[in-house]
């Protein structure tokens, strides 16, 4: 039941407990309690929307920063990750396998703003040994949703 609730909410967080209960053949109160527990345990960490900002007048830039760092004795990567994540400018932080250590996604108003943040805040951190900044040019798909060319083909309205 947990997994089913989570899959439904992951796809559409606007579904009410009543809807979910109907869809899963469960009691509404039961679903409500389960969601409350999931929120309390921080399994569900928040509810957000997928927005294609390119279709608005607001201009944003998104950048993916590769960070190479030196892990700290006794703390590995966690402490440095924590410090990076604390910046409100930082949207996402992942520890990666492969050629670099952290992938950091930053959203800013301009490329200059983002570059400045990287050079003034991230690069000078003691553990950071190198950065590479990649700006996003176009978003095709986010959170499983296609942002471009996603018009649905029409079905005939009535078919036997």
């Amino acid at each position: 039941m947990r997994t089913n609730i989570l899959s439904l909410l992951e796809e559409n967080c606007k579904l009410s407990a009543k809807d979910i209960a109907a869809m899963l053949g469960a009691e509404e109160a039961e679903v409500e309690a389960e969601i409350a527990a999931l929120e309390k345990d921080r399994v569900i960490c928040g509810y957000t929307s997928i927005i294609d900002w390119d279709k608005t007048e607001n201009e944003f830039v998104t950048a993916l920063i590769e960070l190479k760092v030196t892990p700290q004795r006794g703390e590995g990567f966690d402490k440095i990750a924590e410090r990076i994540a604390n910046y409100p400018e930082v949207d996402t932080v992942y520890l990666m396998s492969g050629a670099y250590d952290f992938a950091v996604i930053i959203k800013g108003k301009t490329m200059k703003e983002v570059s400045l943040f990287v050079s003034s805040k991230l690069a000078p951190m003691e553990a950071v040994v190198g950065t590479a900044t990649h700006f996003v040019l176009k978003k095709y798909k986010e959170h499983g949703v296609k942002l471009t060319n996603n018009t649905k083909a029409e079905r005939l309205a009535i078919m036997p």
Partner: protein
Amino acid sequence: MRNPLSEKVTNIKPSGIRKFFDVVSEMPDAISLGVGEPDFDTPWHVRDEGIYTLEKGKTFYTSNAGLLELREEICKYYTRKFHATYDPIKECVITVGGSEGIDIALRAMLNDGDEVIIPEPCYVSYLPCVQLANGTPVQIPLQAKNEFRLTPEELEAAITEKTKVVILPFPNNPTGAIMEREDLEKIAKVILEHDLYVLSDEIYAELSYKGKHVSIASLPGMRDRTIVINGFSKAYAMTGWRLGYALAPALICEQMTKIHQFAIMCAPTNSQYAAVEALRHGDKDIEVMRQAYDQRRRFLMQTFRDLDLECFEPFGAFYVFPNIQKFGMSSEEFAEKLLEQEKVAVVPGTAFGDCGEGFLRISYAYSIDELKEAFSRIKHFLDTIG
């Protein structure tokens, strides 16, 4: 000038759905719950395979019966999933949708005046196909109180000396009814007793919500007298690819393939290659779609309870078949008013046989959001007429 037309053909009634379709298609803001096809796109890996084979230039005819590779996959699939085993070389023909399979099976089997038993409400093409094959259709009006299952008593009562074939359309369009193993065992007994054949239309087999679908061909003694019709439209959301298949005892399959050869040549090559990919790697896709349909089905049953609309719980396909007799309108009147007042299109039960009077077919091949919007309009409608 002489009348250019065949009497037989002109006497066949056009599908009752047509009239409705014309009205709906001129209403751009109407919400339709009248579609008989999945709302999912064909899984991308299947489409990709189709594109890839086009790029490789696989654009020639296949053998009449279809790609052997595909027939082998189909026969493996039927054994694996439904425990009915047919020979890929002599007992399988790839058709243009399940519909062609129905047509050629009846044409291969019927002599003038042979009777074919058709349980109704059912898909619209069985009756005209029987007539076109010079058979005589004998309809059985199925009962809501039996959850629209076919009972051995009903079958027994419809059998005469001329009966040759019984059509078994389960999981059912339009009612969503299924036949479980014990239901089928009773039917099989009657079939064997009277030496009849079964045309089992299992196009919705993968969309079963109460245990796995049981094919009558898997019951003892039934394989040799069952023609299974199935296809890729519903299970893999591949309606537009027009690809189905029939599994039949060699004696029958040979004659079906003959008609197919002369009328069709072979099913679309591109679709056949895509279908091989679907069978090899599509189990997961089927399960994802089946679960989504099942959630919507439960959601609608709850909505019906909230609206106090009577409806037996269907366990197959993607249709619900609510009872609207208490509103004192015919199905057609109800559907017309609902369309006119709330711009929601549903199909009157009568489009699937006279015994569909008093019922509506509502498809849930729509997203939950679409269903919610449609049902808030239906609620408003019920409040105004109630």
